[in-house]
C-alpha cells in the first residue's frame, strides 16, 4: 500500500528543481488560489496541477489526491450552499432554505480553491526525497537541522502510522467492533478506544527512532555535514517567476 507522500522516483526537470523551490512554488500556487476570485482561473489551476503531476510521472497520484478530496469537497459544498442564503434564488428547498446564485458561486470557488491549493504541496513532497528537503532547508534556508529533521520525520511517519491504523482497524473488526458499518456517527464513536493502541505504538516507535538516530550521530551533525550541495539554477528561477506570474495573473483578473 502506497501513501500519499511516498517518493515517486523519476528524472524530470521538476524532480531536479531545488527542494526549496518546489516548496516555494507550491506555496505560490496556493497563494494564487486564495487571491483569485475567478472560478475559471481556479479551474485552470486545478488543471495545471494535474498537468504538473502528469509531467512528473505522478498523474495517478494527482488523481488519487483529487479523489481523496472529493468527500470533503462535497461536504463543504453543501454546507456553503446552505449557509449563504443571500442573492437570487435558483432552487427552493424545504425549511425556508434555497440554493442561491451567491451561495452556488461561493461554494464552487471554495471547492476549487481547496483542491487547487492542497494538491501542489502534496505533489511536490512526493517528488522530493526527504533528505534533500531537510538538507536544503538547513544549507539554503538556514533552518536548524533539528527542526528540518522533525518536519521530514513527521512526513515520513505518515504512511507508517496509516498502516498501523489500518492494522488496528482490521484487528478490531475481526473481534466484532463494527467499523465496517456505514453509519458515520457510529464509526466516530467506535474510533475513540482505538486511539489507545495507536498512541502506545507511536510512543514506542518514536523512542526507537530517537535511539537509533542518536546512535548514528544525530547530535554531531552540523550545517556543514551535508554531502550533496543544492545550488539554485536557471530552472529554479523559471519556476519562481512562473509562480509570481500566476499570482499577478490572479490579481489582474480580479481587477478587470
Amino acid at each position, binding site marked *: *500500500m502506497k501513501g500519499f507522500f511516498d517518493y515517486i522516483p523519476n528524472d524530470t526537470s521538476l524532480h531536479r528543481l531545488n527542494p526549496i523551490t518546489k516548496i516555494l512554488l507550491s506555496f505560490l500556487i496556493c497563494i494564487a488560489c486564495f487571491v483569485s476570485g475567478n472560478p475559471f482561473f481556479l479551474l485552470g489551476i486545478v488543471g495545471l496541477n494535474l498537468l504538473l503531476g502528469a509531467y512528473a510521472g505522478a498523474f495517478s497520484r494527482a488523481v488519487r489526491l483529487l479523489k481523496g478530496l472529493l468527500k470533503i469537497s462535497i461536504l463543504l459544498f453543501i454546507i456553503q450552499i446552505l449557509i449563504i442564503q443571500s442573492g437570487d434564488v435558483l432552487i427552493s428547498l424545504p425549511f425556508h432554505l434555497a440554493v442561491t446564485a451567491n451561495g452556488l458561486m461561493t461554494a464552487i470557488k471554495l471547492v476549487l480553491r481547496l483542491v487547487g491549493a492542497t494538491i501542489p504541496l502534496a505533489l511536490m513532497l512526493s517528488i522530493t526525497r526527504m533528505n534533500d528537503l531537510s538538507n536544503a532547508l538547513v544549507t539554503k534556508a538556514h533552518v536548524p537541522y533539528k527542526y528540518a*529533521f522533525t518536519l521530514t520525520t513527521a512526513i515520513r511517519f505518515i504512511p507508517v502510522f496509516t498502516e498501523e491504523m489500518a492494522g488496528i482497524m482490521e484487528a478490531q473488526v475481526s473481534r466484532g467492533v463494527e467499523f465496517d458499518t456505514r453509519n458515520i456517527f457510529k464509526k466516530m464513536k467506535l474510533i475513540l478506544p482505538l486511539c489507545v493502541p495507536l498512541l502506545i505504538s507511536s510512543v514506542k516507535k518514536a523512542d526507537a527512532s530517537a535511539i537509533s538516530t542518536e546512535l548514528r550521530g544525530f547530535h554531531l551533525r552540523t550545517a556543514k555535514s551535508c*554531502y550533496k550541495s543544492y545550488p539554485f539554477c536557471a530552472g529554479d528561477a523559471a519556476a519562481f517567476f512562473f509562480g509570481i506570474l500566476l499570482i499577478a495573473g490572479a490579481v489582474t483578473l480580479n481587477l478587470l
Partner: protein
Amino acid sequence: MITIDNLSFQYQDDKDMALNGISLEIAEGDFLGIIGESGAGKSTLGYSINGIIPHHYKGDYYGKVTVAGLDTFEEEPSSLALFVGSVFQDIDSQMVATVVEDEIIFGLENFGVAKDEIEDRIESALKEIGIHHLRHREISSLSGGQKQKVAIAAIVALQPKILLLDEPTGELDPKSSRQIFQMLKRLNEEHKMTIVIIEQKIMLLCEYARKLAVMKHGELLCYGSVPDVVKQSDKLEEAGINIPRVSTLCRMLKEKGLTQEEMCIHVDETETMIRRDILSGSWKVPKDKSLTAKISLAEEEKKAIAGELTAREPKISEPIVQFENVSFGYSSDPVVKDVSFTIQKGEFIALIGENGAGKSTLSKLFNGLHKPAKGTVHVNQMNTKEVKSSTMAKSVGFLFQNPDRQICQNTIADEIAFGLRCVIDDKAEIENRTNRTIEFFGFDREAAPFSQSRGERQRIALASLIAVEPKLLILDEPTTGLDYRECMEMMEQINLLNQKGVTVVMICHDMEVVLDFARRVIVLSEGQVILDGPTREVFRNKEALRQASILPPQITELSQRLGEAFCNVDTAEEMLALLMAGKEMAR
C-alpha cells in the same frame, strides 16, 4: 574488546533489577549470541554496551562497562557509536531516508566522514551486504528483509569495530533471517568485525555464532563456546530455551549408551555420529516398526491420548470452510490465485510458505476482511461476500501477529468483556464468560494489559477471542516474537481448544511447532496452493518444500538422510526407539 565488570542496573520507576551482577569479556573478532526469555535483560545488556544506558534510559547503575577502552559511563552514545554500530528489531523506525543511498549517507555525514571518501564507503558497504542493486530504490518499496539489510549496510558503512544487533530477525521469515546471519558471518570472518547479537532463534545461533551467553532474570546463567553451552541442557531448560532437536537426540543416545559423542548441534554431525557409532556396528532394520511406541512411558501416554482424540473426531466430516477458486489482489496483480480447499470441523491446519507467498492475505479471506475478487469463500455456512467481518467475529476468531493492535482497555477483565460486548447483549452472560475465561487462563483481572510481557499480551488477546467461543480460530504467526516457554504455553492453550472441537488454521514459520501441533499442512507459493496433506507427508515432499523455500524440521531432515528405513521418523523419541529396536534385532 568489551569488558563488562559486575554490572547491575535498575530502570527508574521499576521495582526489579533489570541486570544483576553481570561480568562478561568479549574478545576482538568474537561472534557472540545472547539468548534468554523475554524480560531476561538481553536488550538492557545491549543498551549498556552502546551507551543508551545510562545516557538515554536513566536508573541506578553499578559496575563498569568498557568498550574499546572507553568507559560507557563517561562517553556519549554518539562517540561510542564510532566503535559500536547498533541495529534493532523495529525496522521502520530505524530508517531516516526515502532512498537507500540517502540512508547510508546519513550516518556518514553525521560523523563527518571526508566528502571524497563518502562515495567509496557507500559502494563498499552496499557490496559487502550484497544489496548493490538496491542503491537507488525507494525504501518503502523494499521487503522487510531487504530493509533490515539496508539498516545493517548503513551501520557497516561507518566501519565500527563491533556490530551490536538486538533481534534483527524478529520480524523476518526463516529465509531472510538466515541471509542476515550469513552476512554477519562474512563480516565476522572477512573483516574481523566483532558481532554481538541478541536473538531468540537458537538454531541460527548454534549454526553461525561461536559463543553463547544465556541470561535469566537479569543474570548471566552460562557463557562459553556454543557446544559447551548447549551441553549444559539443564541450564538452558531453566532459562526457558529449547535446544536444537538433534542435540536432544544426541543427549538421549548418550544416556542409553549408544554413543560417546558429547554434543551434536547440526544435522550433519548427527548423521555422521549415528552412522559411525550405531549403524556401522551391529544394527539391523527392525521388521516391526510399531516397536517405536513401546520405548518410553511418556511416549505411550502420548499415543494413548492421540488415539483417544482420533476416536473422538466425528466419523462423518462436516465442512466448516470452503474456498472455491478464490483469487484476490490489492491491485491488478493477484496475490492469491485460484485457491480451492475444504476444511472439516475440528481440523488443526498449518499454513506455510515464505514471506510474500500470500499467507496473511489468504488468512484475511477467512473472515471477510478481504472479499474474494473471484470465486467464493464459505465459512460456517456464511458467504464472506454477504456478511460483514464484524458479524463473522461471532464464529471466527482472528489472532493477529501483533497483540497490541487488539488490546485497547485498561484492565484484563475489561479487555475480555469488550470483545464480548461486541457480539452478545446479555450482561449476565458477558460477566459469566469473562470470569470463566480469566479463570481458565489464570489472569489477574485488574492488571493492565499493556504493562504485561509480549507473551502475556498475546495470551490476553487470545483469551478475549476465546471468550466469544468461536468455532474457527485463525492465527497469524501466533508465536513470533515469543520465547520458547511463552511459545509452548500459547500452543498448549490452542491445542486444548482444538481438542474441544475448535477448528484451527495457523500461519507459522516455526516448522518444529507445525510438526508438533498441526495435523494437516497447506503449502503456499506465489499465491497458489502447491501442496496440501497430512503434516508428516508434507515434510517429506522435498520438491514442494524447496519451491516454498522451507527447511524441514531437523529430525525429519536427519531421517531422510539416513535412508529408507527411517522414513517414518520425525521426532527424537521415535529416532531413539528405532535405533534401539535395530540394536535389539541385531542381537
